[in-house]
């Protein structure tokens, strides 16, 4: 029988929602009541919209409380722990549980379940048994074959078969080889790697050990972005624990296989997600991609054979070894095996992380699991942005597209790392294209002319369109630049940079045309194209808008109709957000 315990979700999302205070309050309460109860922390289970999550595990079963604040701690302890009565109005609902039930958790198998700072808990879940199995009973080639058979494809975005990649590095000849984990998660809108690093760091280490064994590498690097301090902290703890238990260092599991592992903190450059740029960065240089071939498997870090895999890819590895290639390949579609983690964000009801078998439709992911559009039903679904700056916006007419590499590519978007940002009818698609071009233009390393200058020119065109100064012929110019940038860039960043523009042009061309021809933003999002107006019948003269207006544009006496001076108004929208009567609305400016 398990000991009674309380587990608090302390991933970044839990902490940001006040998890640490909840933890402290519960801890104090346990001490002051003299309860025989352990309190532990865990990573993110993926229900970020319900954070802070607190699990109470008693012999009678597990109860999960949602949206816990410190003030709720005393009642949980008094009623649930002392008196044995579950506080049902605070627990997660059946709907929440259905969302979990529809998932297939392989990568996230331990996230939100175990303490990420305890190697013992990882090992209780079968942790480090895969590396033992590999070392004691499999040759490196057998490991490569097993991963190839599983059909696992790189989860960083490109979708290259992992086993084939390992095979290249395995056959490559060198006195020293390196195994790198790419944890430089840079796609805006994606956070699955952070959650795995924070919630289950040992699974990454074990995945790297198996990979190192398979290709014959004895030295590994985890390249983590510096924006993830909690992930770095937990990885450091995990590496030390693995070393103490003999999984890192010399003679692992009594064999002659040895492996050293270091963390490299990225210094902030999106292009370092590209493998040759990442290698340059570890070598201490500017992270600029170089021409391939030679591929890193032949000549990578310091000129030695090198293999690079993404965090999510590696988290799959121990599971595949323990459950077999067939077990993994039983999930998914013909060409996209296994599961994929998606980060649901934007205008969605239940934002967070979900892991589903490949082949599920976008509609099921967004509506059945994610709960559809956030809010009270006032807004409707417009598009989902998939694949970050390299991806594209998929409209509602394509919601039945299955999520697998090939089907998503056909829409013009890409699977990418799995960020899904949901947009409703208040999001302007031209502005989204501008937003991404601003990003890629900033992050272009500058090596290829079309990427360096072409993205800049595309951004300038998009900026003038959203400002209402678009010109006849701008759409054609954007298409022309897009094709050229795509064709003449060396790395994935440049080759895919035009995708957000091309997909929005493909599915939302009329929005571009309204901006250019009528100086109208259909979503009423572009500031230069809207103004604000007070609806006389709705205004009760409460004065809230006057208080919040930063530029004194609204005047009026208490309980009398307020007046908005459009010349003074800077169109910040704070009054709209503040007005409870919805008396202030956005209207077309021109």
């Amino acid at each position, binding site marked *: 029988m398990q000991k009674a315990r309380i587990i608090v979700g302390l991933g*970044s*999302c839990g*902490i*940001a*929602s006040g998890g640490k205070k909840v933890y402290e309050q519960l801890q104090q309460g346990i001490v002051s009541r003299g309860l025989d109860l352990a309190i532990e922390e865990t990573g993110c289970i993926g229900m*970020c*919209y319900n*954070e802070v999550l607190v699990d109470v595990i008693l012999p009678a079963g597990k109860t999960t409380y949602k949206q816990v604040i410190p003030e709720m701690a005393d009642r949980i302890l008094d009623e649930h722990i002392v008196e044995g009565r579950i506080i049902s109005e605070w627990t997660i609902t059946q709907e929440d549980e259905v969302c979990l039930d529809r998932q297939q958790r392989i990568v996230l198998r331990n996230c939100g379940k175990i303490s990420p700072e305890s190697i013992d808990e990882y090992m209780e879940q079968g942790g480090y048994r895969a590396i033992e199995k590999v070392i004691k009973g499999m040759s490196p080639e057998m490991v490569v074959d097993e991963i190839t058979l599983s059909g696992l494809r790189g989860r960083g975005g490109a979708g290259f078969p992992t086993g084939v990649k390992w095979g290249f590095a395995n056959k490559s000849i060198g006195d020293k080889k390196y195994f790198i984990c790419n944890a430089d*998660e*840079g*796609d*805006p*809108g*994606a*956070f699955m790697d*952070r959650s795995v690093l924070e919630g289950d760091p040992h699974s990454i280490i074990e995945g790297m050990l198996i990979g190192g064994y398979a290709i014959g590498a004895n030295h590994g690097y985890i390249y983590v972005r*510096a*924006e993830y*301090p909690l992930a770095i902290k937990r990885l450091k703890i995990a590496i030390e624990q693995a070393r103490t238990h003999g999984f890192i260092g010399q003679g692992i599991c009594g064999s002659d296989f040895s492996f050293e592992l270091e963390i*490299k*903190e990225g*210094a*902030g*450059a*999106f292009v370092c997600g590209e493998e040759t740029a990442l290698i340059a*960065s*570890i*070598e*201490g*240089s*500017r*992270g600029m991609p170089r021409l391939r071939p030679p591929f890193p498997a032949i000549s990578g870090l*310091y000129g030695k054979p090198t293999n690079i895999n993404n965090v999510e890819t590696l988290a799959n590895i121990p599971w595949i070894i323990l459950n077999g290639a067939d077990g993994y390949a039983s999930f998914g579609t013909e060409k996209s095996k296994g599961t994929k983690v998606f*980060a*649901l*964000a*934007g*205008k969605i009801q239940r*934002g*967070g*992380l979900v892991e589903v078998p490949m082949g599920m439709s976008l509609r099921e992911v967004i509506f059945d699991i994610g709960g559809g559009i956030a809010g009270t039903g006032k807004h409707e679904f417009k598009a989902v*942005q998939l694949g*970050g700056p390299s991806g594209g916006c998929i409209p509602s007419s394509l919601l039945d597209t299955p999520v697998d590499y090939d089907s998503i590519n056909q829409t013009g978007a890409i699977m990418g790392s799995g*960020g899904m*940002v949901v*947009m409703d009818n208040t*999001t302007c698609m031209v502005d*989204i294209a501008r*937003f*991404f071009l601003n*990003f890629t233009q*900033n*992050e272009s*390393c500058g090596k290829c002319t079309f990427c360096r200058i072409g993205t800049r020119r595309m951004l300038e065109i998009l900026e003038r369109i959203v400002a209402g100064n678009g010109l006849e012929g701008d759409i054609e110019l954007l298409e022309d630049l897009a094709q050229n940038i795509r064709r003449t860039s060396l790395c994935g960043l440049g080759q895919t940079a035009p995708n957000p523009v091309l997909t929005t042009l493909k599915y939302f061309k009329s929005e571009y045309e309204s901006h250019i021809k009528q100086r109208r933003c259909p979503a009423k999002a572009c500031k230069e194209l809207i103004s604000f107006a007070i609806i006389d019948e709705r205004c009760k003269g409460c004065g809230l808008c006057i208080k*919040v207006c*930063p530029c004194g544009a609204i005047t009026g006496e208490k309980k009398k109709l307020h007046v908005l001076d459009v010349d003074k108004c800077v169109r*910040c*929208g*704070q009054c709209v*957000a503040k007005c409870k009567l919805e008396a202030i609305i956005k209207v077309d400016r021109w």
Partner: protein
Amino acid sequence: MGCRCSDSFNRNRLSAILSEYQGKSGGLIPVLQKAQNVYGYLSEDVMLKIADGLEIKPSVVYGVATFYTQFRFSPVGEHIIRACHGTACHVSGAENITRVMTDKLGGLEPGGTTADMKFTLDKVACLGCCSLAPVVMIDNDVYGRLNEARVEEILALYR
């Protein structure tokens, strides 16, 4: 807070950092990161000393330092505010949050530091807390589900 590199304690710390990486490959970025942790930013003087210590050209040090967004070349405030402008934050009103922040900090524009050296305000690409959008990170703490009204509330914790 001016340049503190003449401070003997800090000068020794730079020497200690340099000696850890001398003769090792791939040391430049960790050295720059650690130096920035000590001084808050990378002054010309510090970069020259690093070039000297690692026996590489100052132009290489400067080239690498300016390539990455993490490095700063002017003094920073006591607290660094990173306003997230990732996709999810963008569609959830990040522009408004940052503008209110600017208002509350006496007109401080992103990239700048307040005159009292208390706050530096930066716009960043994505902090990876997308389900809590819009998000702001102050030092190492993340604040999510922000609205205009909560901006002053979180700033007050650091004032």
